[in-house]
């Protein structure tokens, strides 16, 4: 019980862990947490070590920085190095390696690359600098895409002509489908993403139980949320039920945020296909600007190379993102690839499975060996 004491309500955590043990018995279960925020909580609180040995958590593709393929980073660098351009990006993307270095290195070479917190900051910069072209590097799932949509609507209303967006927004359902179709992995259920679901709601996941026979429970980010969601998954399996359930009802509504969805639909449309790091091309998974927003589309305004770059051979981010291997099983984990000098994207973001494990996991794993598996 060493770890449970760190939880906000240790008594509640103990009850949940006991129930999980009863439900799991001696059987084996493999659940995927889709969202990088969950991965972070799981490692931060050593949740794997309070679970019975048969209940395994594998990390999914829900880290927006981690899934950007190298070719898109090279495209971003090409845009940043276009004369007259101010290239703006979230801080998380600055150290993501492309085939030719990262954005920080481009900045050191003289490109005008600036870090922004919000797409609205980039738009404001464009208003202040009418002599320059301001490009915003948009990344993220449905959690951040509505913010880009609102910013584009505002750019159109205010007629800001020197602002454009390089869209790398992606949607969460297609990679879940791709993982379910993948022969590599046998999963017994999913912890559904929390924040993405505040936008899309719970209905889009109904295909998971319906077509693939796997339960899905949308979960919050507290350790108790994760434990409760695992308990709900096991209860479904033991009761012979298979459905979408919402553990995070205090924030997520089944119908999501209709206004945000309407804005997404107004500004974006699905690309026929989009490349994901490690997962390859997934059809209908990326968002591009609709034709009505062509004047603000960086891919139409500038020449973007669009070259596909293969991942470095040593890097196994793809297998980590699909949950086929654990972070520490990668050949370069913690040696050639560290948060300071990442080779793969999973080591860059604090939500990436490798960075989370590098920062917190080793400690817990060593402690678990010392104290034995603190499961009951």
């Amino acid at each position, binding site marked *: 019980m060493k770890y449970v004491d760190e939880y906000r309500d240790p008594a509640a955590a103990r009850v949940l862990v006991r129930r999980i043990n009863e439900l799991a018995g001696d059987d084996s279960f493999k659940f995927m947490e889709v969202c990088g*925020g969950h991965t972070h909580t799981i490692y*931060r609180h050593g949740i794997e070590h309070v679970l019975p040995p048969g209940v395994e958590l594998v990390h999914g593709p829900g880290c927006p920085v981690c899934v950007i393929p190298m070719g898109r980073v090279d495209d971003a660098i090409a845009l940043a190095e276009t004369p007259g351009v101010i290239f703006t990006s*979230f801080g998380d993307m600055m150290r993501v390696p492309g085939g030719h270095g990262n954005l920080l290195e481009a900045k050191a070479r003289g490109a005008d690359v600036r870090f922004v*917190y919000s797409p609205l*900051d980039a738009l*404001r910069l464009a208003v202040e600098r009418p002599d320059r072209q301001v490009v915003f590097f948009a990344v993220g799932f449905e959690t951040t895409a509505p*913010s880009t949509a609102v910013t584009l609507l505002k750019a159109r209303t205010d007629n800001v002509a020197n602002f454009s967006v390089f869209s790398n927004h992606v949607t969460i359902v297609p990679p879940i489908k791709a993982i379910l179709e993948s022969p590599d992995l046998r999963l017994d259920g999913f912890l559904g993403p929390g*924040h993405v679901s505040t936008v899309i709601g719970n209905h889009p996941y109904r295909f998971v139980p319906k077509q693939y026979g796997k339960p899905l429970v949308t979960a919050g*980010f507290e350790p108790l949320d994760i434990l409760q969601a695992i308990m709900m998954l096991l209860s479904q399996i033991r009761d012979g039920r298979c459905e979408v359930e919402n553990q995070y009802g205090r*924030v997520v509504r089944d119908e999501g945020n209709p206004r945000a969805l309407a804005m997404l639909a107004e500004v974006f449309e699905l690309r026929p296909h989009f490349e994901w790091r490690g997962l390859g091309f997934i059809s209908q998974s990326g968002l591009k600007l609709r034709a009505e927003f062509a004047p603000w589309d960086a891919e139409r305004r500038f020449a973007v190379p669009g070259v596909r770059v293969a991942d470095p051979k040593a890097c196994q981010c793809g297998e980590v993102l699909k949950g086929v291997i654990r972070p520490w099983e990668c050949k370069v984990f913690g040696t050639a690839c560290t948060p300071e000098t990442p080779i793969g994207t999973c080591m860059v973001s604090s939500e990436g499975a490798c960075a989370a494990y590098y920062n917190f996991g080793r400690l817990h794993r060593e402690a678990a060996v010392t104290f034995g598996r603190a499961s009951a």
Partner: protein
Amino acid sequence: MCLGIPGQIVELLPGDEQLARVEVAGVRRTINVGLLEDERIQVGDWVLIHVGFAMSKIDEEEAAMALSSLRMMGQGYDDELEALLASRVEARERLEG
């Protein structure tokens, strides 16, 4: 960028830009609340903020829990907070004034 930072609405700004002042970790910042228009956000409400936008309305207890989890993140939270505080989302009037 995916971290949701809890903030409390302290002022709804006039005009058509759907901006509000929030207090985050003792500092006041302007954010966009347009995505929560259907929620009828009021002064005193708590919201989760992503990249300068209020994405969900939450209650005070949820805000306290989220904040305490974020503090445990250490550097990741510090970076996100610093970025939010450096953000320059402002109302048009303030920009011009």
